[in-house]
């Protein structure tokens, strides 16, 4: 879970509200409610402190996960672009043909 090396610190950090945080907070909350349900307690009304704590833990993990994800994808993109820059012959633009040149003459049979 996100221990981003020094290089990744120049990336824009994710905002506190991000998709992974939201999802994992939901996972934490549902696991607290499931725990309530398994122990025959009212799922949503009991143990609000537990629900809040699990949701918080999920949110926290999600933030660091997003940071690590951003770093990983940035590294991959950088390496890919560097490869493209060093091997332009493999990425030559294809010669474009218009439809007029490809399409055969049309002889309607009515």
């Amino acid at each position, binding site marked *: 879970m996100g221990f981003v090396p020094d290089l990744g*610190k*120049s990336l824009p*950090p994710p905002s506190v509200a991000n998709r992974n945080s939201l999802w994992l907070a939901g996972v934490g909350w549902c696991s607290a409610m499931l725990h309530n349900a398994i122990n*025959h*307690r009212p799922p949503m009304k009991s143990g609000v402190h537990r629900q*809040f*704590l699990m949701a*918080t833990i999920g949110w*926290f993990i999600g*933030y660091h996960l997003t940071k690590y994800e951003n770093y990983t994808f940035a590294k991959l993109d950088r390496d890919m672009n560097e490869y493209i820059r060093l091997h332009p012959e493999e990425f030559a633009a294809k010669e474009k043909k218009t439809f007029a040149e490809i399409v055969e003459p049309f002889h309607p049979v009515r």
Partner: protein
Amino acid sequence: MTFNRLFSGAAFVSKVGSRSVFTSSKPDSANPNWLRVGLAFGTSALLWGLLFKQHSTDVHEYKVRNGLE
């Protein structure tokens, strides 16, 4: 209570509608364990504080490294 259940062998015994032989008293749902409630909310507050602090550090670090501040 959750950690007692995880770490004690009673976690593997089904407690559906029965008293556990490992605890001497039934779980009392009428009187909350205020210590545990306080610890849970305190830990949550700590985590939120850590999160916001980390975020502000990250934003500052980003600005410094990209010459925006």
